[in-house]
Structures are given as structure tokens and as C-alpha cells.
């Protein structure tokens, strides 16, 4: 079961095709500048496009950019899933 909206949801828990808003980025300050420069910042809208095989990275779209990020890092990014009806349906 997917968590209810009041619980803490991370980027890694999103379903493929699901869209969410980033609420918090809990990554060492040393790297936050680079993440922000790639589009991973609080308030941004993110869509999960695909998950890699063998525990591979996640493919995301944020604005005009597509990114790959590892699950370990995705688990440290808190998101707020948007209403499922507003996102594109996915099998």
C-alpha cells in the first residue's frame, strides 16, 4: 500500500509516472549546491519516469531536465505526491 499523504513519503517511494512536489532535501550541504543546480530543490515538481534494473538509479523529470539519481539518495528526498488524477496515467 502507498502511504497516506500525512506520512512522510520519499522520492524512492513514488510509482512510475507519478508526480510530486519536493518538500525537503536531506543531503549533506556539500552536495546541495550541485543538486539544486540540477533542479533538485524544495518546491520543484518531479515526475518519476523509470526505475533501473538491479537496484539501478531512478530516472526523473524536473522542469526541462531529465536526471538519474540513485535510490539511496532518493530516499533522502521528501516529497508530497500530487493528486493522482492530475498526473499522466501509467500501466
Amino acid at each position, binding site marked *: 500500500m502507498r502511504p497516506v499523504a500525512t506520512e512522510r513519503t520519499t522520492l524512492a517511494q513514488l510509482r512510475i509516472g507519478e508526480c510530486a512536489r519536493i518538500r525537503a532535501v536531506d543531503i549533506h550541504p556539500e*552536495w546541495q549546491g*550541485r543538486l539544486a543546480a*540540477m533542479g533538485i530543490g524544495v518546491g520543484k515538481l518531479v515526475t518519476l519516469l523509470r526505475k533501473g534494473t538491479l537496484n539501478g538509479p531512478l530516472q526523473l523529470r524536473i522542469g*526541462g531536465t531529465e536526471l538519474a539519481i540513485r535510490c539511496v539518495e532518493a530516499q533522502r528526498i521528501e516529497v508530497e505526491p500530487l493528486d493522482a488524477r492530475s498526473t499522466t496515467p501509467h500501466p
Partner: protein
Amino acid sequence: MKRVALLGMPNCGKSTLFNRLTGAHARVGNWPGITVELLSAKLLIGDQMAQLVDLPGIYDLRGLSEDERVVTTFLNEQHPDLLIVVLNVTQLDRQARLLSQLRALGHRMVVVLNMADEARLLGMQVDIEGLQSELGVPVCLLSAKHGDGLSYLHTALRQQLRDSDGPTKKPVSVDVDALIQRCISTPIQASYQLTERLDKLFLHPWLGLPIFLGLMLLMFEAVFALGKPLQEAMAWVFSFFRVELLEPALVTLPTTVNGFLLDGIYNGLGTVASFVPLIVLFFFFIGVIEDSGFLSRAAFLMDGLMSRLGLDGRSFVMVLMGFGCNVPALMGTRVIRSRGLRLLTMLTIPFSLCSARLQVFVFFTAALFTPAQAPLVLFSLYLISILLAMLTALLFKGRYVNNEPFVLEMPPYRFPTTKQIVLRAWQEIRHFLRRASRFIVIGVVLVWVLTHFPAEATPGSAATWAGMIGHWLDPILRPVGIEPTLTIALVFGFVAKEIVIGALAVIYGQEGDLLSQLIAHQLSWAQAYSFMLFTLIYTPCLSTVATIRAESKSLAFTVLSIIWPLLLAWVISFGFYQTAMLLLGP
């Protein structure tokens, strides 16, 4: 002379714009306080000559990677008169961050919104006037790839350079993010449909990797199928030239001088030069793959496996880049911030089968294997090259620990223009010829001297100096199936792999087809494969060693990066050769 610096994030098309503005005249140069070489070129702007410097692509002006340090040092110490800030217009939502950082520093600048062609395809609307008036700097929307909108950039540059002696206006404080939202409108449904469709195939959970490997195999088949006839044609031209022109012309010279000129320099250089078409072809394919955005897909596919080896997807891409030449791949590790990850990646890159080694393998596979077997033999060497890089990472990952998060951009698939491909091929030939003039001539001359002296010895025999070196190293190389005659080629291969084939031509006193036939006659396939394995694995060349030293700034690491491959080369060749002997009999 006025100094103009080009600056932007990775994948913003900065290098394409640099090439577009300067043509093929760029050269690398050193700058005080900066440890790496930067590309720069003279550029006529209006009636003023200016120097245009291409700074490395960076994400964050306050970041701490080697590249980011280079840019900040350059801005602080070289005081460029003008910055050209290149931003990908389709990704302004995040790239504007760099613009804000630069504005805060108070530099005079021209903003280039690149990839206008993609913005048009996506249906984006850009309010240039609005951006320009609120930012208080010239803003140009253009496509560096296709060359649209460049004239406006030239006008802006001319104006800014003319004013650059006056005081810099204090930047108006603007909320750049809000400004972008006001001035750029993107349709909700905007997406790269072609990229999405291709990704469904190339990033397929189970088919992705086999498709990727299949495409690589196809590329090597193509290089071989197209390159071999070209190389043979070149070899034929060189022998024709020798027999018809040089031999009659030089017949009056003393035998030693004649032999030195024809069997030494001409045979050696001619054999190496006949591989130029193959190299061009190879770089043509590598260039298309690199510019198309396919490499980041390879990184995505491989990251799961790479993370278990202590590396990440970027490391895999560097190893692939090393297939062209190890040196730029080693320099490419500057984007990696974590020192552990960077050193571990640098330790694996020299295993990638570079184009110089490819020459040796194409030559041997063509001489000893059937046309049907040859591409497969070649592909096996590429696989071994990747496997050894992985093995090395696995063994050393405990020593070089990585703490850097893996976040990688996946740009849309792009198809390079013919002009981009031609320019690139030309740059590679120039690089090859420069190396040739530096190393290969000296190497070939030395090999000739070693194989022809002392004067009373039969050339190429055990009594020559080369024979003595071969004899001396025989206890080490005999068990791996390498003949004393071939030893000298390996010794010089340490300097540069381009010399190996030239050295063989000198050792056997033959070139082209005759050389191939002679080698096929003298070596068994197992000996040849063992020789190729050794050549693949041991120290690639002096340039690589020098680059590792410069980039790692550690002598101990450099020594490790020489000793480890040497050891591995011997063990693997030994294992292969002895197994082959056991199974097939001597």
C-alpha cells in the same frame, strides 16, 4: 588584447558555441594559478582582436570539484573583460541559478540562450525584450548547433567590448527565478517525444543492456569492415611510392644510409600512417555516440552494477571515452568531486582499449584470423578491457572510498551535424599527427638502431642490441609466448602504442601485406593473442602516465598505476598462453 570567457553548465552547448565562433583554430594553453589547460582562440570582434577562453562546464560557482575551482580561480585572477554566459533555454528553470551567482560577482556579461531550435520544437515562447530590460544585459537567443541568431551575438559582443573600459554598471537586483517564470512560457505537454520513445527501447529493464552491447559490437564491426580496406589501400600507396620512386632515387646511397631511410624511417612511418583512416573512422563513430546523449544512457544502465564496484555510472562513461584516447578520459574525471571515486576511476581508465592499441589489434587480427573471426577477436579484447577495469575497481574499492551522491543529467537524444562531425575528426587527426611527430619518429629510429647494431650483426638477429634486450627479458616473456624479437616492440610500446606497429615493420624489415604474411608465418594464433593481451593491459603510454601524475598529484598513485597493470598483463597473458598450450598442445 581584451579577454572574453565562455562559461556555462555542462550540456548547455558551450563547446559547440566556442567551435562555432572560432572555427578550428583553438589551441590549448596554460594559465597562471590554474593547473589544467584551457582551450582558447583569437577572435575578431568588430575591429578589436579578443581572446576567447573556453572555461570548463560547471554546475555551481561555489562547488568544490576541480572544474569548479578552475573557473573561480580564472574569474578571480585573470579578470576577463567580458563573460559570455551560455544557458540552455529549455532548462532555464534551473540553469538561471548560475546566472544569479555570476551577476552577484558583478562581471560584465552577455547572456546566450542556446538551443533555440529545441525551444521552438517544444513550442516555448521567450520574451527576450523583457529579459534584457530587467536583467540590464544583452540577451541573445540562438542555436549554436545550426548557427541561427549569431549575428545578434556579434553585435552585442562588439558593443560590450567597446564599453568595457568604462565602469561596470552595478547589477540591478532582480529575482531571476520570478523573471524567468514571467518571460518564458512552456506548454504543459512539452516533451521530447523522440527521446521518450527511444528511451523506452534503450533503457528497457531487460533489453537495454543487450541492445547497448549489440550496438557497440555493430560499431566495431563497422570500423573494421570500412576501415580495413582503407588501411590496405593506404599501405598499397606507401609500398607503391617506395618501389616506384624512393628506391630508384636512393639507390646511389651507401647501404646503411639507404636501409636506415627506407627500412627504418619510411617503413615505420608508412605503416603507422596507413592506420590514419581507421583512426578517423573510429573517432567518427565515438563522436556520434558521444554527441548523441547515448553515453548518459549507458551510465544509467550500468550504475547499478558500478555501485557494487565502488564506482558510479560516470566512471563507466569515462572508461568508454577512454576507447578513443585515455588522456582526455582521465582529464574528464575532474567533474568528480570525491577524491576516492576520482582516483578509483583513474585507476580503471588505462585499461580501456584506446585507438592506438586498436591499430596493433587490427593489424594482428587481420594477419592471423579469418575475416569472419577478426571482428569477434577484436570485440573479445574490448570485453576483456572492460572486465579488467571492473576487476581493478573491485580489488581497490576498499582503498578509495566514494561519498559522492550520483546524480546525472540525461539530455535528450541529439544528432550532431555533419559540420560538427567533420570538425571533430579534423581535431583528432591533428592530435594524432602531433603525437606522431613527437614520439613515433624517434621511436622508429631507435628501434632501427637497436635492431641493426652492432654493425657486424645480422639485422634483427639475436646478436643485435635489440636481440640482447630480448634475450635478457626472455625468462619473463617466454612463459607468456612472446618471442625475443617482439620484446623490443613492447619495450617501445611503453612510450606510445603507435610505435608498436612501426617497430614491427622495422624489426621484420617489411611493410604492408608482406609484414602481415611474415608475422602470420612466424607466430601461432595463441602467441599473437597473448601478445595482444599483454599490449592491451600493460602501461598504455607515457602521456597517460604523465596525465595520471598531473591529475592525481600523487607519485605513489602514479607508481601504482604503472605497476598494477604490468603485473596484471603478465598474469593474464601467462594464464591464457599456458592454458592454450595445455589444451591445444605446442
